């Protein structure tokens, strides 16, 4: 079965600073990978996804993520954070086959606080 670890529970950055949120996964083959964002009291919004192909994927709101097979990582980055980016971010892994086919497994989330 697949698993996801987001090592940072809470990150604080200043507005305008760069951001990197870490995500490590465990899966026997190449999984599908996603980043979702959840604002307080809201549902989850998809930021970006990786299925195959180019390992650097671009998403909405200026976010990007890079799939690194050798490190089993899919870190989320943004060059300049805006105050409106303050939210909770979830990394998720999906299995393209096997017994976990169709199941999306989420990490525990990283809360992002942005200081003015």
């Amino acid at each position, binding site marked *: 079965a697949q698993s996801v670890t987001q090592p940072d529970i809470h990150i604080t950055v200043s507005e305008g600073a760069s951001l990197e949120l870490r995500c490590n996964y465990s899966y026997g083959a190449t999984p*599908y990978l*996603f980043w*979702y964002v*959840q604002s307080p009291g*809201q*549902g*989850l*919004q*998809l930021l970006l*996804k990786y299925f195959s192909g180019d390992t650097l994927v671009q998403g909405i709101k200026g976010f990007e993520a890079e799939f690194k097979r050798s490190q089993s990582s899919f870190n989320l980055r943004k060059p300049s954070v805006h105050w409106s980016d303050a939210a*909770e971010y*979830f990394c998720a892994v*999906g299995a*393209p086959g096997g017994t976990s*086919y*169709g*199941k*999306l*497994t*989420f990490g*525990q*989330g990283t809360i992002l606080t942005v200081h003015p």
Partner: protein
Amino acid sequence: DTAVSQTPKYLVTQMGNDKSIKCEQNLGHDTMYWYKQDSKKFLKIMFSYNNKELIINETVPNRFSPKSPDKAHLNLHINSLELGDSAVYFCASSRGLTDTQYFGPGTRLTVL
């Protein structure tokens, strides 16, 4: 237009009651899901339906029963509610089992 909608948004009820949460999607997707997000924000899949057929059924108490009257709807019925059922329940849908999942706004269930 809301892609995935849930009703109600908030649900407060007493222990032992039976309640239902409704979900509808207008994306034309074939697959729908129920997730539970606990107080620590941990999100875990409960059920998945594909073309009205139950595909994923995680280790969930029998008190929870999903019902899919058609491909656009997936309802969650909970019998004999317990304190531990308090959580936010999210509905999601996708074109297929391995496609991007789109989430509803969530239903915050509080059991007193």
